[in-house]
C-alpha cells in the first residue's frame, strides 16, 4: 500500500511540483512553436507522454545493465539520444501498421519529438534521482503528463486570450508567450508547498 502511495507521489511530483517544462524549462522550442492551438498541442502532448513513458525505462535498462557495469556513465548523453531516436523510428512504424487513425493524429508529431530536449532531460533526471526501473516508468509518464498539461494550458491561454488582446508591438509572439510561461511557472511553484506539509 505504501509502495503504491510512493509511486503516486513520484507521479504527482513529476506532473506538478517538478514539472519538467515549468521548473526546468526543458522542451521550450516545441512548447513555444506548437502552442498556438489546443488541438495540435493535444496531439504533440500525447506523443510526448507516450515517448517519455517508454524511453525512460528503456534508457534505465541501457544505463543500469550496459553503461554502469562498464563504467561508461559519461556516454549517457549520446547513448540516450541514440536510443530515443531509434525508438521513435520504430514507434512510428508500429503506429502506422496498427492504426491509420492514430498515425494520422499522432504520427506527424513523432519526428518532432526525437529532438525534444525534455525527453532526454527526463532520462537524465531519472538517473540523477536514482530511480528504480518501475519508478523510472512512473516518472517518465508523470513528466510527459506534466509537459502536456503545461502546453495545453499555454495553448488555451494563447488561443482564448492572447489572440484577442491588443499588445505592444515588441511583446507580440514569442515574447508574450515567454512572459506567460514565467507566470505559469510561478503558479506551479505553489504546488511545491503541497508535498512539504507532511
Amino acid at each position, binding site marked *: 500500500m505504501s509502495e503504491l502511495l510512493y509511486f503516486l507521489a513520484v507521479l504527482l511530483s513529476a506532473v506538478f511540483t517538478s514539472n519538467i517544462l515549468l521548473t526546468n524549462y526543458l522542451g521550450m522550442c516545441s512548447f513555444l512553436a506548437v502552442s498556438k492551438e489546443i488541438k495540435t498541442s493535444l496531439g504533440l502532448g500525447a506523443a510526448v507522454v507516450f515517448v517519455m513513458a517508454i524511453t525512460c525505462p528503456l534508457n534505465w535498462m*541501457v544505463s543500469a545493465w*550496459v*553503461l554502469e557495469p*562498464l*563504467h*561508461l556513465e*559519461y*556516454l549517457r548523453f*549520446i*547513448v540516450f539520444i*541514440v*536510443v530515443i531516436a*531509434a525508438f521513435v*523510428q*520504430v514507434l512510428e*512504424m*508500429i503506429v*502506422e*501498421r496498427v*492504426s*491509420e*487513425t492514430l498515425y*494520422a*493524429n499522432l504520427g506527424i508529431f513523432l519526428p518532432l519529438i526525437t529532438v525534444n530536449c525534455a525527453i532526454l532531460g527526463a532520462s537524465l533526471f531519472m538517473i540523477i534521482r536514482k530511480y528504480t526501473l518501475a519508478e523510472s516508468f512512473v516518472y517518465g509518464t508523470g513528466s510527459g503528463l506534466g509537459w502536456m498539461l503545461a502546453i495545453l494550458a499555454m495553448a488555451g491561454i494563447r488561443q482564448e486570450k492572447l489572440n484577442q488582446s491588443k499588445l505592444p508591438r515588441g511583446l507580440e509572439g514569442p515574447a508574450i508567450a515567454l512572459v506567460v510561461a514565467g507566470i505559469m511557472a510561478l503558479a506551479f511553484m505553489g504546488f511545491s508547498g503541497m508535498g512539504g506539509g507532511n
Partner: protein
Amino acid sequence: MITAFLIGLGVMCAVVLILTLVILACDATIANYGPVRIVINGEREITVQGGRPLLASLKDHEIFLPSACGGRGSCGMCKVRVLEGAGDPLATELPWLNAQERKDKIRLSCQVKVKRPLRIEVPRELLQVRQYRTQVIGMRDLTYDIKEVTLQLAPGERIDFQAGQFIQFEVPPYALADEPVYRAYSISSSPAQHDRVELEIRLVPNGICTTYVHRYLKVGDGVTVNGPYGDFHLQENDREMICVAGGSGMAPIKSILARLAETGSKRRIRYFFGARTERDLFLVDEMRALERTLTDFRFIPALSAPQDGAAWQGETGLVTAVLERHVTSVENAEAYLCGSPGMINATVAVLKKKGMPVERIYFDSFG
C-alpha cells in the same frame, strides 16, 4: 587509459549497430506489408506491393481514377468503394464523404494505404480509362491566348470516347516545375477520330500546365495523357439543343457539334458563345461552315465589350442577357454549358427561369 577509451568507443559502436539492426529488422517486418491482393468488382484480381496508397497502386496496374490534386487528399475526386480490407475513413477524408457515402464504404483512394487484401468496386467506365503515349503533330493559335494542340496516338492505339468528355494531360517536370502534374482538358475533336485528339488550351496566368503548353511544348514532343473521363457528353435523342460556352469552353461543344454533323443530325441547335472582344472570338469560320452542314444550327457569338462598336454586327452584351433575349421556348430542349462557374451559375438561373428542368441542363464547369 587507452583501454578505457577503446571500451567506450566499442560500446558506443555496438549500441549504434544494435539499434540500426533493430530498425532494419522492423523495416523489413513491421513496415513491410509484402504483396497484397486487390479484387476489383469481384472479377479482376491484381497483386501490388503493400504499404502504398491505393490510388498509386491502381495506377501501376493501369487503372486510372480521376485525381486533380495528385494524391494530396485535397480534391476529393478519387473516390472508390472499398468493401473490405480498409479501416474507418481518416480525418482527412471525412470532409469529402457524406453520410450515405460513409455507409456505402466510399473512401478517397489516395488516403487508403494498401495493407491487407482489399475488395474494391470501381465504376465500369473508369476501367475503360487508359493511358496513351502521344506525339504533338499540330499546334496553332486560335486567339492570342488559346492554342489548339493536336495529339497523335501511337500507331495501332485507339481511343473511344463520347463527345464532350475530357482527358488528363500529364505535364512532365520542366524548367519551372520539379514534379509531374496532371490537368484536365476537354477533347475538341470528333469521337469518330480514334487515332488523335485535339485540345484547346487557354493560357492561365502563372498556370503550371498552360505555361508549359504555351511556352515549352512544340510539334514532335511526346505527351502522356489518360482518359476519357466525365459525364458531360452528348445525349442521343431528338431534343432541341441550347449550347452556351465561353473561352476554352468551346472545346467540348465543338466535339459535340462535330459528332452531330457526322451523324447527319436534324436537331435544332442554338450555340451561344460569350467573349469579351473580337480578338477573343475563334473558330468562327468553322462554326459558319457547320451552319451550312447541319440542318438547323445557328452560331450566336456575343461580345460583352466590342472594341470596334460600329463594325461588330453580332450580339452585344453578356452571354446570359443574349440568351435571355433569344430563347423563347424550352419545352422540348436540353442545354449544354461549358465555362466558368460564374457563367454556368448565371446561365442555369436564366434557363430555370425560362422553365427548363434542371435535369435537362448538362454542364462542365472549369476545373
